[in-house]
């Protein structure tokens, strides 16, 4: 086929214009089915409050999270730790967490200070995991949730190493990084997270820091509130009430 310069140039020009138009049409048609358009990301800033004094270590949150999110066995988006701080050695607490607390804890009566600490992704404002992702697969959503784009993740595990709280894992079959989404598919529908829904004592509460009527503001004002590893300057948004200094 003979192609002179004029035809080639006009052909290339048409291709560029048409592909641009097709792309613009695609972008306008975005929006997955089943997504409520009433939700406004700019009006929310999500976090969680945890009242350590209410946690009974039943493991309901761990099981609920696994059921809601299909977390593979042996991996955890949330888990519960049992601390034992003996009177003599405050710096070295004994921590156990059999199966992440999935089946609760074997009953134990020992002296010293004993308590449970539920853990999950802290949805940091300055997340080390987001900063370390080389491809833009993990990100802070505009409403303050740290999420993973599993179609874009290359499974390099940088984020897993970067998280100072150990909240991430490599999904054994998808081979992408996986973590707590703060039940983003629920909270954007007006529901609470699966772990909060299943918690029998209300130790965990989903918090919307942009909602002026959310009890989180009173919680933060009138309690002794800590975040985990504040010296990492992650600006974590999971707030623990009455957290023992031994907790790491």
């Amino acid at each position, binding site marked *: 086929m003979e192609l002179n310069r004029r035809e080639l140039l006009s052909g290339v020009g048409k291709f560029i214009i048409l592909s641009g138009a097709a792309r613009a049409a695609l*972008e306008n048609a975005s929006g*997955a089915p089943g*997504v409520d358009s009433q939700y406004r990301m700019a009006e929310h800033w999500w976090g969680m409050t945890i009242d350590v004094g209410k946690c*009974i270590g039943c493991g309901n949150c761990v099981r*609920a999270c696994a059921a809601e999110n299909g977390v593979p066995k042996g991996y955890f988006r949330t888990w519960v730790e049992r601390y034992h701080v003996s009177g003599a050695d405050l710096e070295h607490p004994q921590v156990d967490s059999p199966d992440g607390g999935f089946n609760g804890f074997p009953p134990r009566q020992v002296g010293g200070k004993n308590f449970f600490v539920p853990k999950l992704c802290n949805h940091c404002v300055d997340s080390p995991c987001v900063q370390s992702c080389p491809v833009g697969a993990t990100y802070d959503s505009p409403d303050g949730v740290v999420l993973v784009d599993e179609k874009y993740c290359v499974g390099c595990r940088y984020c897993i190493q970067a998280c100072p709280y150990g909240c991430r894992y490599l999904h054994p079959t998808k081979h992408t990084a996986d973590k707590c989404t703060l039940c983003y*598919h629920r909270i954007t529908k007006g*529901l609470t997270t699966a772990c909060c829904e299943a918690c029998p004592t209300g130790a965990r509460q989903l918090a919307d820091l942009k909602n002026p009527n959310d009890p989180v503001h009173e919680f933060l004002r009138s309690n002794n509130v800590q975040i985990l590893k504040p010296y990492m300057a992650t600006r974590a948004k999971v707030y623990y009430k009455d957290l023992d200094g031994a907790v790491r």
Partner: protein
Amino acid sequence: MKRILGEAEHLVRLALVAAVLVVIFFAIRRAVVPVGFGKYGHYRAPSLDDIRARPISFAGHEACEACHDEVVKTKVAGKHAHVNCEACHGPAAKHADDPFNNQAVKPDPATLCVRCHEADAAKPKSFPQVVSREHYGGSGCGDCHNPHHPNGV
């Protein structure tokens, strides 16, 4: 052509080649960068919709209470007033969507109650706890206690 541009013709040719290269660069960029990348930040914006579209398995206590108002009335005066239905009954979104074809789970009190109420030093002192072997051996909790209203016996 030569008469109009004069001595600058070779520069115009260079500029045209440069313009074509720039256009090709942007065309390749459009083809390679996924839709919506960079809309909110250095990530693919439609990923938010992908995550939001995942199905739920916990219906939420409001959905349960819409039908089971008799249980709500029993619960409201008891110690379990603030325990959500699915804390014991497990995820029930399928049951809430289609109650006739999907039965909700009736948990077995013999294994359910001790998960919370078996005594442990790490549990808050104010939380009601029993050593199940000594409390009432051999029988299920449900023989004496009503799980929806467990006050007293």
